[in-house]
């Protein structure tokens, strides 16, 4: 217990690894044992991460649960783990979606079960490591390690064009990563010239970034940019995504959409933003490019969705559109934009993950994903249709569901920067509603056109177990998002203060009411949102007045 208290992140990180090693020693004939143990460790991975919920202190700025051990002293690389509000949410998302997707594979994976569960657990280790690592070397190791299991998940258990999709995914991501490696090394030496010591410590290295010349900052920014932009994926780098998502097995798609893409946005938040040039003109130039690219991604992704014949491909392209919102929010550089973007990342994990699961359910029953094969499914599968509807609405941003909170907050954040960009982004929302509802209409409503669909069984207990938690989360975030905003308050504030120092002094609000900000809400995002948090902060602000 003592060990767990002091090394909670290591325990979360290594639980799936222990599971994978254990599975390695069970003979392959014993398929049920693999399946059961795989699920057990998936669940265990989630359970050991649960104590974070009450141990994480959102009022602390900076990283928590730090662990710091010497690893390779010759180059200054250390085993440093730690999480702040952003990575905290993503870690929980990873363990939760991991457990759910492993459960969803129960009957879908019929061959090579042993390897499947081993690789899936290894994938979990890689993804968790990326979100926890506070050492660039360690971060890079996890970032790369994760590619290998994903390659095999797509390549072995995928559908027809799996080999092509798998290697495309691997090569695209690798190309970005190796450039990032060079950028990391460049940063390492630049920082050494300032601090005088060789270290890969993330906060230290990024802390020196503002002292570089504008040119160096620009080079470093673009050096990191490609790795993250390919991962997200941003518009011109997105071509691997439809292939990988469509060919991957259901659980693979859920993890790809739910967690892997977030590694890109996480990278932007954690590494790219602090590297933005301090020079206002140079920064604006980069921001303009990225905003335009994000908006192209939103609209292009949505338009392409309209034309898809394959349900899974449609959802895959919708990720391009939704992640465009996330990057839009990030590069607005306002607290609302950032907080909204992070919440939208979580939302996207929930709703797109659920949609992939639902398509997986259909695929297991019919072995096709073509929209034209279906129609009128709400008659034989009413519960399925209901959950599908909730997730569709959540994905298109209906109020009271999670998608609305994210998109709305992002738009608020972007609006403060430019009305024009906001207007373009709203077009994306409208198109999103169009393609999602049109898809729903074609698949669910009307008479059952295809006789094969007449007697499809509705969801079974296991499928409920994978979907209901996501539905609950969707409603919870949609109705009461305050805990998320509270968690994000400190890290977002820190980022904005570093990359957009003019923001707080210009609006003045946060600076004028320091007690409110430190004790309660993230200043801007809450009061503007008129969420329950804002009333609390009003009360808090009013309290001293009343005493007087």
């Amino acid at each position, binding site marked *: 217990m003592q060990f767990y208290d002091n090394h909670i992140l290591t325990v979360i990180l290594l639980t799936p690894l222990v599971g994978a090693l254990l599975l390695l020693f069970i003979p392959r004939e014993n398929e049920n044992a693999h399946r059961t143990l795989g699920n057990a460790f998936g669940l265990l991975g989630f359970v050991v991460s649960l104590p974070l919920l009450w141990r994480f202190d959102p009022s602390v700025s900076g990283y928590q649960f730090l662990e710091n051990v010497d690893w*390779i002293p*010759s180059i200054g690389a250390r085993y440093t783990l730690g999480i702040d509000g952003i990575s905290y949410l993503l870690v929980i998302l990873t363990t939760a979606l991991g457990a759910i997707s492993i459960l969803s594979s129960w009957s879908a994976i019929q061959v090579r079960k042993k390897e499947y569960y081993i690789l899936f657990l290894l994938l979990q280790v890689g993804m968790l490591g990326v979100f926890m690592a506070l050492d660039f070397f360690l971060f890079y190791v996890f970032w*790369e*390690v994760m590619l290998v299991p994903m390659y095999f998940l797509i390549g072995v258990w995928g559908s027809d064009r799996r080999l092509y999709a798998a290697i495309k995914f691997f090569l695209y991501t690798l190309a970005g990563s190796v*450039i990032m490696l*060079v950028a990391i*090394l460049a940063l390492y030496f630049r920082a050494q010239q300032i601090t005088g010591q060789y270290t890969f410590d993330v906060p230290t290295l990024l802390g020196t970034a503002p002292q570089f010349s504008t040119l160096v900052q620009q080079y470093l920014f673009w050096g990191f940019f490609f790795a993250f932009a390919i991962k997200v994926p941003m518009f011109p780098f997105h071509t691997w995504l439809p292939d990988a998502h469509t060919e991957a097995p259901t659980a693979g798609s859920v993890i790809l959409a739910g967690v892997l893409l977030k590694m890109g946005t996480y990278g932007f938040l954690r590494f790219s933003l602090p590297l933005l040039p301090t020079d206002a003109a140079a920064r604006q130039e980069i921001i303009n490019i990225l905003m335009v690219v994000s908006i192209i991604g939103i609209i292009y992704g949505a338009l392409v969705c309209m034309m898809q014949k394959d349900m899974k491909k449609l959802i895959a392209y919708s990720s391009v559109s939704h992640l465009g919102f996330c990057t839009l929010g990030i590069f607005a550089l306002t607290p609302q934009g950032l907080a909204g973007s992070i919440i939208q990342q979580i939302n996207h994990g929930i709703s797109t993950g659920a949609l992939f699961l639902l398509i997986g359910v259909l695929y297991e029953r019919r072995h096709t994903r073509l929209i034209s094969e279906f129609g009128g499914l709400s008659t034989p599968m009413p519960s399925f249709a209901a959950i599908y509807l909730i997730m569709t609405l959540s994905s298109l941003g209906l109020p009271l569901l999670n998608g609305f909170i994210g998109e709305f907050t992002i738009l608020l954040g972007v609006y403060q920067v430019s009305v024009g960009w906001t207007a373009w982004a709203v077009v994306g929302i409208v198109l999103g509603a169009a393609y999602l509802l049109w898809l729903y209409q074609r698949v669910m409503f009307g008479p059952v056109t295809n006789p094969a669909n007449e007697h499809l069984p509705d969801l079974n207990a296991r499928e409920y177990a994978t979907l209901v938690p996501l539905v609950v989360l969707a409603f919870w975030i949609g109705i009461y998002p305050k805990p998320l905003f509270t968690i994000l308050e400190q890290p977002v504030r820190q980022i904005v203060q570093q990359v957009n120092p003019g923001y707080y002094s210009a609006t003045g609000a946060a600076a004028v009411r320091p007690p409110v900000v430190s004790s309660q809400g993230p200043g801007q995002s809450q009061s503007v949102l008129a969420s329950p948090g804002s009333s609390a902060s009003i009360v808090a602000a009013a309290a001293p007045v009343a005493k007087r």
Partner: protein
Amino acid sequence: MDNFSQDFFLILPQVELTLFGLAILVFDFMLGVRDKTGNAVFAMLGVLFSGISLYRLHGLGADPVGGFTSSIVVDPFFVFFGAIFLAALALVILLSVRYLQIEEEHHGEYYALLLFATVGMMFMASGYDLIVQFLGLETMAISFYILTGFLRGQRRSNEAAVKYLLLGAFSSGLLAYGFSLLYGISAMADVRGPMGMPLMLPRTNIDVIRAALEQRGPSDLLVLLAIVTVAAGLFFKVAAVPFHQWAPDVYEGAPTTITAYISVASKTASFALLLRLFVYGFWPVRVNWIDVIAAVAVASLTIGNFAALTQTNVKRLLAYSSISHAGYVLLGLVAALSGEEGNATGLTGIAFYLFAYAFMTAGAFAIVIVLRRQGLIGDELDDMNGLYQRSPASAVLLLIFMLSLAGIPPLAGFVGKYYIFLALIQTGHYYLAIFGALYIVPALYYYFRVVVHAWLREPTAAGEMRVTAAQSVALAVMCAVTIIAGVYPEPFIQMATHSLSLPAAILGR
């Protein structure tokens, strides 16, 4: 220093290997046809004894100790490379027994020649005199010419041997010509011993050559000619572009165990010689050739990687990949020699890279060797099909070696590449670093072609795979080193840093 017994002690590892090699030649006659494994045991004993002697030399410390009027030197550099050669030799012997039985060419000469080749390599690493170095190189090369053609019944083995011999002789000629020019330069130069005393060292000594080159200066035409010819000869031996054409044919034709040994030990030994000459000997005139090396490195990376993309034979594929690995090591050399005082990171990177390369490449070849069965060569990509179903452990090992070769963390190959990039960036070679890093992408593609065949294709060749105990030991060792040196590289980095550093004499301190 001229005490003969002490000098003898300094070459004891080589002497022991030679004696065991000769003994194998004699005892081979006494062994029955079925007992030829005894030769392998004997050879392993030789490695063991030599290893112990080498370990005792390791105890001499970090300062170089010269012997035989400084024509050989024992320093961490030699101990490091000697250890790699012996380790590779032991692994190859373990892999060879079964392979030779299948090929029905189980003769004692095979092991004797392996030992003699290793003696040559060790003299290449310890030689501090052009003549000793050249003799070492030729001892190694001639042994390899014979070993390449060891499968007398196979045409492609014979063809490879002839090709290797002709081109190898040509490159040795170039090297000898370069050496003679160097000798001329140093014989004409006015080099004096300490405190102006007449020089007691031969004119072929590396220190004398360095002093002579320093007097001549980098712009001298004769110096340029000498360095270009020496470089060409050595580039041939390490299979760097444009002197690489022999590699794919020889790799494909030679018995796979020998291919492994050529690609691992012969290349490492040639790099040892190259480093000894270029870093220790040609240091004063490095401005001359640093761009040449960069160009050769880039060309090796380009041609090696792109030619490997379309290969259908695993041995050829690995041949081209080893060309690209030579490119990475040369990039490290570019970094190591930049700047007034050189770059220690670059040298560490080279040493680590060669160390990692030895084990992961040997591992990759070992899988091909394990695949070899009666009536099936086992080195086409299609022969790998379904390896996963036939032998899951071999498939996992193959995956680990391929990932390491491509440079995916946390494996040894990644740390090696990482150090090369680190050094390039430290010395300001940003473009070379980006260039080298981007070549990981095509490299991964062709390494994964092998993986795809092994993991994702259905088995075409039926039948169980048999892995002997000796092969398992060898595979386990290679795999363990590849993983440990990747996950916890610290001790290996220390070792690399200790082994390869610029001597104080060169830096003028």
